[in-house]
């Protein structure tokens, strides 16, 4: 300020967002539901990165996990069944300043919203997609989902799911222009947090599948892994999901995997003998559609009027 001594300038106190500032309504998920750990991981990451809550938009579909935005204190868009991805892409298209999260479930993403899933991955806009996969329709009371295991009984298939499950990882890896595919589990909060953080860091559409248990309908599906940690295969690489040494040590079954290696990513993603966790694939050079949709941002009203007048003039007689 001209005329004032520099030491007189008042520096506004730096804004410090506390964890409480990211917390919304009390979560109404069942006790033991994996959604709780994902929520708390996202809130902590936002706090750690000091993302202003008003710059966060959480878009979800319909299902248990899609109640997610209500439990955040941020802008939220609890959309329609299967449709969070088009909405999230729309939010991001002209607002590069917003941090956009899309929360979907296995039914929401892989069944009713499957068309959008394929295209949102290909659009590769800078958004974080969390697919909370408990391999069942929970909110509608236990129907078979696309990821329900073969032979598992459900309300719609009391004699067991008739088909092998869809593998969301290999499907996503097979989509052109895919740029980030990771998997984590609800029962390992450090890995979950590290994965979500890496997904948010990535500039592009990051797809994270979280293996979860629904305490009501699928509480037992990962009993093998909980009993014996060697059922979990930790994928490691300096460019991958990096764990604290102590946490890393607890998972003995590890494999080196370069996330630039798509072929190997496919092989790992297709494994059914173990649950691979970590980063399958990352391509920082994939084309980003959000950079395309941002074209023309910042035009002044007079520039716009000039262009419109010129366009109209071409029809003049």
């Amino acid at each position, binding site marked *: 300020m001209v005329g004032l001594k520099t030491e007189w300038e008042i520096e506004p106190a730096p804004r410090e967002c506390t964890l409480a500032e990211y917390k*919304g*309504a009390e979560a109404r998920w069942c006790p033991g539901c994996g959604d709780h750990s994902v929520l708390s991981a996202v809130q902590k990451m936002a706090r750690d990165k000091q993302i*202003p*809550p*008003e*710059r966060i*938009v*959480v*878009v979800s579909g319909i299902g248990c996990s899609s109640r997610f*935005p*209500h439990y*955040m*204190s*941020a*802008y*939220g*868009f*609890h*959309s*329609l069944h299967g*449709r969070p*991805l*088009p*909405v*999230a*892409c*729309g*939010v*991001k*298209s*002209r*607002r590069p*300043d*917003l941090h956009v999260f899309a929360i979907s479930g296995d039914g929401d993403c892989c069944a009713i919203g499957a*068309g*959008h899933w*394929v*295209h949102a991955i290909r659009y590769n806009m800078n958004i974080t997609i969390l697919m909370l996969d408990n391999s069942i329709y929970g909110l509608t009371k236990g129907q078979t989902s696309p990821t329900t295991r073969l032979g598992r009984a459900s309300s719609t298939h009391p004699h067991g799911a008739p088909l092998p499950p869809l593998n969301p990882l290999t499907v996503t890896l097979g989509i052109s222009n895919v740029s980030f595919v990771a998997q984590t589990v609800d029962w390992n909060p450090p890995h979950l947090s590290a994965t979500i953080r890496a997904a948010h860091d990535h500039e592009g559409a990051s797809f994270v599948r979280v293996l979860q248990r629904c305490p009501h309908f699928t509480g037992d599906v990962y009993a093998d892994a909980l009993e014996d940690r060697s059922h979990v295969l930790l994928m490691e690489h300096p460019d991958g999901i990096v764990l604290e040494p102590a946490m890393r040590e607890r998972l003995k079954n590890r494999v080196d995997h370069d996330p630039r290696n798509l072929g190997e990513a496919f092989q790992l993603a297709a494994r059914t003998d173990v649950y691979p966790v970590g980063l399958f694939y990352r391509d920082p050079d994939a084309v980003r559609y959000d950079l*395309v*949709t941002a*074209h*023309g*941002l*910042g*035009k002044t*009203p*007079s*520039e*716009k*009027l000039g*262009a*419109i*007048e*010129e*366009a*109209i003039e071409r*029809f*003049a*007689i």
Partner: protein
Amino acid sequence: MGAELVTEQSTARAAVEVSEHIVEIVSDSGEGAQTAGQMFADLCARSGNGIWTVEIIPAEIEPPSRSRAGASGNRIRIGSSRVTNAGDEADVVVALNEQVLYSRIDAGALRPGTIVYVDKVWGESRDPEVRARYVEAVEDFRRRGYTVIETPIESECRKRTKDPRKGKNMWVLGMLCALYDLHEGTVRDRIAARFGRKGAAVVEKNLELFSDGFRWGLENLEQRFHVHAVPVETPTVVMNGNQALALGVMAAGIEVCSMYPITPATSASHYLAANFENAGGIVHQAEDEIAAIGFALGCSYAGKTAVTITSGPGFALKTEFLGYAVMTELPLVVVVVQRGGPATGLPTKIEQGDLMAALFASPGDSPKIVLAPATIEECFHLIITARRLAEDFRSPVIVLSDANLATGQQPFAKPEPKEAWLAGPVDQSDWDSKVAPMAWDPRTGLSKRPIPGQRGGQHVLTGIVHDEWSHIAYESGVNQRAMAMRSRKFAALASALKPPVVHGDPEGDLLVVGWGSTLGAIEEAVDRLRADGRRVSSLHLRFLSPLEPGLKEIFQRFRKVTTVEVNYADDPDAPLINDETRRRSQLARLLREHTLVDVDCWGPVPGSPLPPGQIATHLATKLDELGRES
């Protein structure tokens, strides 16, 4: 070239003065009849004639040649003053083969006396079957009373080009200019503008063909016409309805057009794709119709105004999201360029069958604003209105255009865009966190919304029943209040509207009510009947939800009220149809419910615009019935 033509013109026959004429050019798809028709219309408009055009479009891109269903072309109605509709039967038809002409005969586009210029090349074909069909058809045309002039179109073009299929249309344009006594003044510029991108050689070839056709016309045409033109003095533009919609989108300051390809809506998006970026907007081609509206709503939530443009089948897919926009009070402009339905229906043809779908699509009570432009000019201006209403009333606004407006061209006063028409910048100031994101004004139901980025305005939109904080609430009282507040907004809007203006006397025997693209044809029919002393008036609605006020009072000043609309109604004289079983046209149903007046209807669905003559005939019958009753 100009001087040459002027000297030759003196040898030509004098042109007969006519107040208006209807010309059609039809060809196989891909022969450029549409281009020739558009350019002819453009030239007429530039010389100061009123025009209205209708595209004649086959369902396929390049259907088999010389087939009836493959006819492609244009109808141009030229007048010495403003022309508001496509008119009745054609005065002149130029057909590049005799088979495509049959499709126009089937469509009722010709009358005895129509002058038909048909390319006689087919009578000289090496294929005896083609020759025979041509000879047979020409005889048939003469029997039907058309004045058939066998014209050497292709053989004349062959003198100039080896591939006449690619130049016949310019020759025909030249011939038409001679036929209608148009001076070639700006033709060179227009041809250069149209074909410039294809290079100088193409421009030159087209100019030569045009010139050949013009000269041939002057030397050979037995009859020539002149439609008096008043030179254009005020700034005027000529465009079709989809171009007007697209320019309206730009002038409204909308930033995103999110769409999925569908006929006949897509050409509006094509125009935007080529021109939007200069005005700071983008076109997003989504993976499907649902994603297109979802993306648009995402933009809208983030404070950027968006439009999604579609037709009937696409609109059907969007209805769940439309209900979401109603529930969450998200602004959105949805343009529906109607075609025939249900299902795939008549993809390239006109119908006004989506009124009920627009009003009632989506489960539950989902009130929204529905507007219908009646002219090409209104296609432009109503988008600007729609954008503002969407934001002020936090509501989806559906703009119902149709295939007739989409492809029809008409001159209108050049719009002067204003900064006030543009959407304002996104508000990023702090939001008072004590103010709810849906703080409904209890009288009007209106509220302001916080935009992502506004500190203190964090909230979660949800399609589940919610209170003014957008908090999920299943209690019955909350639902009752939220429903009332969302409904009240439309009463608030209705109370701000003016009653519609009656065309003709404010009272009489019969009142005709219409909406959308039928305006010009209805008013022309009414004017013809009024000139005969019949007591008939008309009224045209632009607001269909909420309806414009005062309708009941207006209706009560007439002995009978009927709608004329292009959507199906049972014929009252058909078997089993009586007052109880009769299914009526859509506006009629709406007006009956709204006014409790016994509104009749006429709802033909020919797949083509209603000609004023047919409307007049129908109304005359109704007036005769009324006369017998009294």
